[in-house]
């Protein structure tokens, strides 16, 4: 059956409601969080209704069922990413995934392979979301390692002209976003990964904006760690994923200590359980993991290739329509070449917050501000932007509504 966003929309109950005095909901903020299909809402609530018990403990049927559901979710995530089941760590968010990793690096003592010193370098990029900048910035401060970053070019790409000088022989970590949450830019990984591995550095990928929108296979990308969040992937909030290569995870020290993550404990010492349990202290977010599995099943049934193709086409339409409006200034690449379906822009003298407010009055949901990437917006010389981000349930009608809304805002604020 041909992909049809209007049919997809029927799976998402939120589109049945109206906004601001009866307006149709035009949801263009999936880059912040996606809406949820019935199957996800059902899977999460069904866990509570039928199977709720603490996983990995308890000598009863419910505990068995809960453990099966939770571990089944792990297998679903592994398959979705092309990784091993024991390589999937559940966290509460992608932010936690990245923090877990950065804290674990400094938690193993001087003989641990991840330990950093002032002789080492951490490389990030200027287009990182705060969640993939601050954990590394602070790790650099804790460890004494040097923080370096790839600059962003005026057209919103990474400046890789100095690749070999940036990823120096003493570089231990290269952490970057797969797709910028502001610019939409999809970063070229092959050359970066090759250089990083040449010097023995690990590559960490913030895939929050790519995993929901395109096929992502960790083996094909040849990366070492990957983080994504459930709630941007039509899944529940409160669940994130950290994937890591098994041969790295076996040496990665824990960040959170507590129940479930140990092999044995005495009053003075503890021995860690193998990964992934080592990195999942406490009773995990079980219902949310099950909901995430339902989300990935939902996306898989539609097909990530189909979703990607749809968004590429719709993204091109969005860029074309926006560029027809005098006063719209797009930040980021102007074509869909290595780019996702998200557009951040300014509109003449109309402040993004005022534009966002006007669009909201028309039922159109967008994001305004610096999008948790303050260093990037500073570099681009804009105080704030308005961002429209598309997903599988959006169609040309939604883009048309946005364009109408922008024209309306120009009239509203211009005439007054």
């Amino acid at each position, binding site marked *: 059956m041909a992909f049809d966003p209007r049919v997809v929309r029927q799976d998402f109950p939120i589109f049945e409601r109206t906004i601001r005095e009866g307006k149709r909901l035009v949801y263009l903020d999936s880059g912040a969080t996606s809406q949820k299909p019935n199957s996800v809402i059902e899977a999460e609530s069904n866990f509570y209704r039928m199977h709720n018990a603490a996983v990995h403990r308890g000598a009863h049927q419910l505990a068995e069922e809960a453990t099966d559901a939770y571990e089944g979710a792990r297998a679903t995530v592994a398959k979705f990413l092309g990784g091993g089941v024991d390589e999937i760590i559940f966290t509460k968010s992608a932010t936690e995934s990245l923090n877990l990793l950065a804290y674990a690096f400094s938690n193993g003592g001087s003989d641990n392979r991840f330990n950093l010193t002032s002789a080492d370098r951490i490389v990030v990029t200027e287009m990182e979301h705060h969640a993939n900048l601050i954990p590394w910035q602070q790790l650099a401060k804790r460890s004494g390692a040097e923080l370096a970053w790839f600059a962003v070019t005026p057209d919103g790409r990474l400046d890789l002209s100095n690749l070999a000088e940036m990823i120096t022989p003493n570089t231990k970590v290269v952490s970057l976003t797969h797709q910028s949450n502001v610019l939409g830019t999809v970063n070229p990984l092959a050359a970066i990964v090759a250089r990083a591995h040449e010097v023995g550095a690990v590559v960490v990928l913030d895939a929050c904006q790519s995993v929901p929108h395109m096929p992502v296979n960790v083996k094909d990308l040849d990366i070492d760690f990957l983080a994504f969040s459930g709630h941007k992937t039509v899944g529940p909030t409160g669940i994130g994923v950290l994937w890591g290569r098994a041969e790295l995870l076996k040496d990665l020290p824990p960040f959170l200590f507590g129940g479930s993550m140990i092999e044995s404990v005495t009053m003075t010492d503890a021995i860690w359980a193998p990964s992934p349990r080592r990195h999942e202290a406490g009773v995990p977010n079980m219902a949310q993991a099950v909901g995430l599995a339902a989300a990935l099943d939902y996306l898989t049934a539609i097909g990530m290739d189909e979703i990607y193709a749809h968004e590429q086409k719709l993204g091109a339409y969005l860029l074309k329509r926006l560029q027809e409006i005098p006063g719209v200034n797009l930040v980021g690449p102007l074509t869909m070449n290595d780019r996702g379906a998200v557009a951040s822009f300014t509109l003449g003298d109309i402040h993004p917050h005022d534009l966002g*407010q006007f669009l909201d009055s028309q039922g159109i949901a967008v994001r305004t501000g610096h999008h948790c990437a303050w260093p990037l917006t500073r570099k681009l010389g804009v105080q704030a932007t308005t961002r429209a981000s598309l997903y599988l349930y959006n169609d040309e009608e939604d883009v048309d509504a946005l364009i109408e809304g922008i024209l309306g805002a120009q009239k509203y604020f211009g005439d*007054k």
Partner: protein
Amino acid sequence: MQLDSLYQEVILDHYKRPQHKGLAATYDAQVHHVNPSCGDEITLNVALDDDKVAAITWDGVGCSISQASVSILSDLLLGKSIAEADLVLNNFTELMQSKGTMVGDDAILEDAVAMAGVSKFPARIKCALLGWMAYKDAVVQAQAKL
């Protein structure tokens, strides 16, 4: 349209023709306040003459609400005693927290009653208060120097 209750003419007037914008060279205290969720910024200078607000000047970038609000404030509090200005400030803060249940006392708030509609839009209350919090901070610092 409900939007009109937010974007009162007075607000858009102040936004387009801001009062006391441009920082004076002399002042008793200078503060810089930022709204970290949207990036709006205001720098505000205050000069006191005993217990009187002798000068308020400011510069900033931000949405119409944040910029109009600081413009209104600079007009309104100028020449008042610190105690009188405090009364206005408290009155305005209360209005902003009223969730649309108050219309504001125009004898006290004058142009600032136009901001009443903002209190119905939770995301914008911080915009409206940005300049007022900057003023409050600046006066405390200026008084400490007296």
